[in-house]
């Protein structure tokens, strides 16, 4: 997946796990969100400066905004590639993150409920986010950018596996 090699605990472990990656279209969704946000911000800056006559160079502000946007755009593609999930027999694994890498391990039996959500942009690309909730607020098992059919399948599987047992409270 990346060049980290076998020494990286987040790539080589756990062994024998069939990692699934999220849809690359998620990157497009995130980019659209980012650019729309940047455009709105830019328009806001221009409007405020022209209306109030603030002593601020519009050119500089827009340059900074576009530079940051470009920088973020570059990381979004890599961040989407870093997302992955795996369904094992008794637990779900989710990994993500570039700066702070995270690997979550959540037993199906600890599941309280499952959320499937999709925003307007996500829907336009036929994607959805599946999130598994446990009794712990810190549990983080969110899988974004799933093709709708995959999302449905994952949700059904999770509820089916979690239905017979709830424990830990």
């Amino acid at each position: 997946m990346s060049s980290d090699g076998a020494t990286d605990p987040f790539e080589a472990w756990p062994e024998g796990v069939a990692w699934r990656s999220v849809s690359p279209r998620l990157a497009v969704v995130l980019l659209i969100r980012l650019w729309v946000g940047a455009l709105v911000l830019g328009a806001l800056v221009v409007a405020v400066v022209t209306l109030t006559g603030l002593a601020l160079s519009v050119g500089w502000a827009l340059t900074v905004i576009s530079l940051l946007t470009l920088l973020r755009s570059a990381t979004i593609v890599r961040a989407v590639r870093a997302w992955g999930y795996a369904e094992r027999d008794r637990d779900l694994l989710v990994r993500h993150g570039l700066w702070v890498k995270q690997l979550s391990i959540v037993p199906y039996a600890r599941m309280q409920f499952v959320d499937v959500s999709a925003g307007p942009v996500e829907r336009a690309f036929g994607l959805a986010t599946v999130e598994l909730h446990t009794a712990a607020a810190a549990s983080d098992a969110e899988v974004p950018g799933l093709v709708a059919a995959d999302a449905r399948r994952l949700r059904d599987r999770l509820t089916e596996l979690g239905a017979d047992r709830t424990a830990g409270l």
Partner: protein
Amino acid sequence: MTATTPPVEAPRRRLHPLSPLLHGVKTLAVAVAAISWQGYAQLGPLRWAALVAALCVIGLAVAAVSWRATGYQVTGRELRVSEGLVWRRTRAIPLERLQTVEVRQSPLARLLGVAELRLEVAGGSKTEAPLAYLGREDAAALRETLLGRARPPAPHGPAVAAVPLLAVPSRDVLVGQLLTVQALTLPLPLAFIVAQTMYAGSGSLIAFASTVTALVGVALQPVRRVLADWSFRLSSDADGLHVARGLLELRRQVVPVRRVQIARAVWPLLWRRRGWLRIQLEIAGVRQADEEETANTLMPVGDLATARRLLPTVLPGVDLLGLPMRPAPPRARWLAPLAQPTLAVAVTDEVFATADGVFTRRYNLVPYARAQSVRLTRSRTQRLLGLASVHLDTGAGTVTAAHRDADEARWLAGLLTDRMLRALR
């Protein structure tokens, strides 16, 4: 559950007839505070008294009407509390969701022989449906009923007589709270105020008032703890652990042992010379609002021997001194320069334990059956040093083994996952 205790339909019951009076007193206090001394000066004593009397009557009337409209009932496996005259509301609380039931007596309620019943519900963010007030015996009986139905039948047959486990000398509670940073630094601003009033004259009233207010804020926590943990007594029976404590406000709580998510042994800096520590419990659904800071104390203050004796009542088989603590690698100092020597982790058959804290040292213990998920995280700087952190999430917070060697962290995460899955049954 239903086989052993046939659900008896209890009749709908009212709160204690003195409740409106007690609520009325509260309203009165608020009203008087609202009118304040300024009002007193403007109205003159006679009119002020008349106004207060009128408010009193109104307050009592409102309280009496709401008393008539309030009722509670235990039906099958639910407690139903209905209230409100205009906006009627009936809340049904499933008994298996009950976390703790607490009997509380404010000083005034003690005088009148009544008590307040507070219910903590799993998943609820605050105390639900306080029943204020019930007769003291009624409150105790209702608590027994609620807890009796809330828990599965006790494995060891009929109720066992309560076994006293701990009686903390109130002097120790006082000394313990005097040995806090807040209490010890108090003389400084106090001296400042005295000096200010002596030399600066009367011009700095506002400065004076604000200093006093700040002072009260600082001193409040230790004072509160002393009041709350006064004559702390712990006993155990088939229901679980019973805590009775309080100087002004008497409280009796049951701590359901099976719902303890995290147990913490805490050594505040200034207690270390005396060899004292405190044991706190984190219970799912019971938020630690600052008023409730002392809510789940197993031992407010005590020595190591007592702590070692008490801890197994909550976490069977756990010995504070027997934990095979593995320190964090020396290179963790780059990321935690002060805490590194205190960071440690232990995995036993019973619990996952971590140690942390620079000034206030803590041991955090999680039984595997309460763990909800395992997380392995690594930041960029951790990666440069070959470190990673392992987190065990519970319904009442997360316990983290920070800055472990990356390979060890991976091993830990695998081990914890295994233990967590095995503890499910």
